[in-house]
């Protein structure tokens, strides 16, 4: 198998805080065509009850993928990144990621399994603020294509 099966259940320590900025949210929203002014207009965001502009629903991937890297580059995991394909992605938002948040992610390797000659790894990143408020649970399944 193209991944170390004993990694299921492993947890990596929280990453360094990611500072969520207004301009990064704007840049991400523009890149995905998210035109809701809640991403770019702080006054509009406050009028809707948010503290500042909020990130689009998939912005969390930017932080979560930095956490996932810990597993992908872990030599003991044995993952060949050139064979990795993204299979599935989910976000459960506890509250929107907001400009000004300092977000840390704790990576959990939930399952490692094999199917059809490929290995599938499901990871879960628990994102929370440095104050300990949960913001998002990001779950990702990667497929490591089997070799010939």
């Amino acid at each position, binding site marked *: 198998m193209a991944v170390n099966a004993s990694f299921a259940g492993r947890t990596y320590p929280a990453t360094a805080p990611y500072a969520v900025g207004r301009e990064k949210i704007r*840049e991400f929203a523009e890149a*995905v065509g998210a035109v809701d002014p809640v991403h770019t207009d702080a006054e509009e965001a406050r009028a*809707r009850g948010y503290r500042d502009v909020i990130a*689009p629903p998939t912005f969390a991937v930017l932080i979560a993928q930095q956490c996932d890297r810990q597993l992908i580059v872990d030599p003991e995991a044995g993952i060949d990144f050139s064979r990795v394909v993204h299979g*599935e992605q989910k*976000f*459960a938002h506890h509250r929107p990621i907001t400009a000004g948040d300092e977000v840390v992610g704790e990576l959990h390797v939930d399952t490692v399994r094999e199917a059809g000659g490929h290995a599938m790894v499901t990871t879960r990143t628990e994102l929370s603020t440095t104050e300990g408020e949960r913001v998002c649970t990001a779950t990702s399944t990667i497929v490591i294509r089997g070799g010939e």
Partner: protein
Amino acid sequence: MALSVADVQAGQELPGRTVHITRATLVQYAGASLDRNPIHWDERFATSVGLPDVIAHGMFTMAAAVNVVSDWVGDAGRVVDYGVRFTRPVAVPHDTGADVEVAGVVKSVDEAAKRATVELTATCNGEKVLGRALAVVALD
């Protein structure tokens, strides 16, 4: 601003849209998302690893598709849960780019919790590129 639970019924169709993707779209997304894998912008690299062409980031397609839900519900912050499967890559030819057709339909409404589940479909050249694409929105 956001939709009220009284305005939403199972079976309701959301206004769909066509998302046009070019190489420039992918370069912009690579920069914004920090996903700089060359399979998304370097045709020579992409074909050298067995892909038909440069392919769109699955995460770009996922993000672009949910705009249909955010715009319909009236506040992107109301998308509380969102998940997809990446069933097929979207090849993005240099000359023509690619068109992804996105549609959405309300699958169920939980009146007590004031939440609705929307199923999205995203197709390119008639083939599904996202599977099991479900978004849960919080309603007024």
